[in-house]
């Protein structure tokens, strides 16, 4: 549930959580993996002191450390790949709102539940059209949620149109902006992000309860058993209640956590074995989106880049200055930042003024514009160099034949420039195919995102990874051939 809030990447932050007592002093500290990037209220950076993490899971880790008499250190890991880091042995367990699912039970050693989550539907303040999922489905409205969560699975099962996000703040932002009609997410998230927002309101009762549990490697049965016992003791002693009350996520559902015979609620039927024929169509959908984004962005970049290059080379001084500023600005800022500013800052204003709504196409459009603007800065520099490399004599020869500047540029200079700039342009185009994966932050699912989602749910990281790589190559290799063929056709000197 990472991202936003803190655009600074954390690296790996290790904080000693519990004062380990002497008994286990010989044992090395345990490492647990979680993503603190925008992960409130689970684990997130203290706004007052961003070098510190906080959250109810941070408190729980501290309590467990005390209970077990063993130091437990937090290790920052990307949410998408938490399970991978666990399997690779980089962390000893994962605690980050992982739901107990059939797939996880099959593959990992899931602990006793430490929290009973429910899903909470949230709408805009004053929403009167619906309070239930059934009504949403009948009305054909779109619901935002996090990808690969119990909520997203539930929505898909009900056949409700879903916008899947990478992190938990954005769905509520888009809800307030009117881009989705409702958000369905785990209650703790709704409590933290939606409850304090006067523009949003809770709709109906919490639904579809499930369990969060710690994930261990299957081979670490003994360690997992220690944690099971410790969790039960914390629940029975009221320690869990104390922590959850502090974070305002305590409710009567949690009483069952003190029951020694509590059976975990397994969410989601085991994803039917994710076979090639099942995931390929999804990957192809992703590839289609990647192609759409890349081709449109590149077309935009070529257009803007050419204009900027011509302004810089031949424009009067103010235009030259403008062109230089454009290049420096858009080359200098990260696309991620541009995406956020465009999507959450500028685009809502523009669409409100225009009085139109594009639905999910707004996200795609914003992605295309962001990459178009960014890559135009690179293209502009390539074209400037390419145009300058055409000998002055070509201009003179054309002038002596009576051609004016515009005709000369269009008919003589530009065709020769294409030949020069094709190889660097091809480079950029191929890079763009891969760079576009960043648009997943505004809930556009392209090939890389689709891969992450499929791999995470099926755990077939290598197999689906290879299929994804083949798809990327199928896109980029022909491009290289096309470029070389064009280069030849345009007459290599």
């Amino acid at each position: 549930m990472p991202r936003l809030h803190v655009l600074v990447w954390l690296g790996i932050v290790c904080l000693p959580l519990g004062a380990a007592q002497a008994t286990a002093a010989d044992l090395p500290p345990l490492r647990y993996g979680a993503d603190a990037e925008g992960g409130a209220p689970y684990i997130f950076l203290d706004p007052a002191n961003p070098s510190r993490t906080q959250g109810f899971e941070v408190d729980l880790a501290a309590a467990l450390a005390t209970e077990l008499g063993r130091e437990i250190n937090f290790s920052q890991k990307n949410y998408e790949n938490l399970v991978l880091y666990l399997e690779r042995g980089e962390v000893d367990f994962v605690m980050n709102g992982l739901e107990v699912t059939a797939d996880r039970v099959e593959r990992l050693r899931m602990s006793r539940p430490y929290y009973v989550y429910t899903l909470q539907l949230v709408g805009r303040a004053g929403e009167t059209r619906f309070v239930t999922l059934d009504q949403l489905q009948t009305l054909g409205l779109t619901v935002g949620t996090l990808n690969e969560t119990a909520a997203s699975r539930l929505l898909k099962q009900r056949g409700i149109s879903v916008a899947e996000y990478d992190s938990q703040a954005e769905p509520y932002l888009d809800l307030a902006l009117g881009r989705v009609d409702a958000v369905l997410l785990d209650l703790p998230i709704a409590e933290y992000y939606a409850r304090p927002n006067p523009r949003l309101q809770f709709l109906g009762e919490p639904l579809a309860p499930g369990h969060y549990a710690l994930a261990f490697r299957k081979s670490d049965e003994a360690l997992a058993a220690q944690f099971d016992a410790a969790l039960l003791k914390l629940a029975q002693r009221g320690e869990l209640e104390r922590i959850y009350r502090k974070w305002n996520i305590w409710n009567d559902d949690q009483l069952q956590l003190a029951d020694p015979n509590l059976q975990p609620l397994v969410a989601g039927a085991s994803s039917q074995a994710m076979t090639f024929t099942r995931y390929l169509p999804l990957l192809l959908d992703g590839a289609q989106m990647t192609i759409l984004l890349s081709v449109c962005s590149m077309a935009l970049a070529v257009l803007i880049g050419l204009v900027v290059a011509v302004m810089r080379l031949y424009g009067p001084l103010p235009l030259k200055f403008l062109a230089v500023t454009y290049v420096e600005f858009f080359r200098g800022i990260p696309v991620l930042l541009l995406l956020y500013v465009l999507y959450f800052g500028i685009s809502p204003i523009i669409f409100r003024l225009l009085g139109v709504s594009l639905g999910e196409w707004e996200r795609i459009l914003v992605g295309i514009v962001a990459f178009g603007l960014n890559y135009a800065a690179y293209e502009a520099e390539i074209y400037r160099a390419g145009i300058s490399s055409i000998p002055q004599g070509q201009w003179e020869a054309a002038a002596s034949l009576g051609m004016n500047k515009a005709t000369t540029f269009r008919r003589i200079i530009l065709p020769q420039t294409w030949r020069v700039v094709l190889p660097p342009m091809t480079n950029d185009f191929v890079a763009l195919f891969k760079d576009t994966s960043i648009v997943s932050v505004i809930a556009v699912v392209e090939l890389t995102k689709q891969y992450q989602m499929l791999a995470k749910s099926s755990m077939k990281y290598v197999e689906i990874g290879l299929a994804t790589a083949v798809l990327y190559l199928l896109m980029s290799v022909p491009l290289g051939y096309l470029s070389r063929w064009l280069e030849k056709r345009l007459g290599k000197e």
Partner: protein
Amino acid sequence: MNAVTLHHVTKRYGARTILDDVSLAIPAGQTVALIGPSGGGKSTLLRCINGLTTFDAGGIHVGQHLLMPRTSRETASAVRRMFGMIFQDFQLFPHLTALENVMEAPLQVLKQPRAAAREEAQRLLARVGLAERADHYPRQLSGGQKQRVAIARALAMKPQGLLCDEITSALDPELKCEVLDTLQELRSDGLTLIVVTHEMGFARRAADQVAVLADGRVIEYGSPDKVLENPQVERTQKFLRQVLA
């Protein structure tokens, strides 16, 4: 009638004076060879005549048009339509075939229909002896062939004359002949040719008038017999001794 008349043309680059009060009349239909030591202003003079280079004082009549230090774009382009220019380094358009090189300006500037432009281009290429090379790209042609395509390209605009800037300097001796022969044929067609050259043989054989430029001035002007065989100015004598030695 004069095709080109220069009136007190002066051109400076910073402190250096490239053309120093040059006045010269070039009669229509004649071939004038511009000779003289390197850096004497020959190429600059040529470039001033079709407006590729501006000058600081004086004026140049080309037909009924007058080029001035601040000439409008329209005048420059009208002048360029009257005189084609051939460059030492050809400057063919590398992305176009020989035929397309010749067709380009008639299509873009004269807006000729494609079929007509193609027919005319084929005729011109045949005239310079390159009918067989029409579909070759410049990189597939020898230097002499390239220069003949360049001549055909200039002729496609139906100019009254050609400005030739050391057009054989980049060529091997055996290739020079084919280009110079082509020029001589054009001369007999009544075109005005202004030729910057180091080929004294060509100047003697083909030029009606020879002008000697040194240090930005025309120091001697007259028929080849007079200027080349019996130069009056000491500077000319010295120059001729050097090139003929």
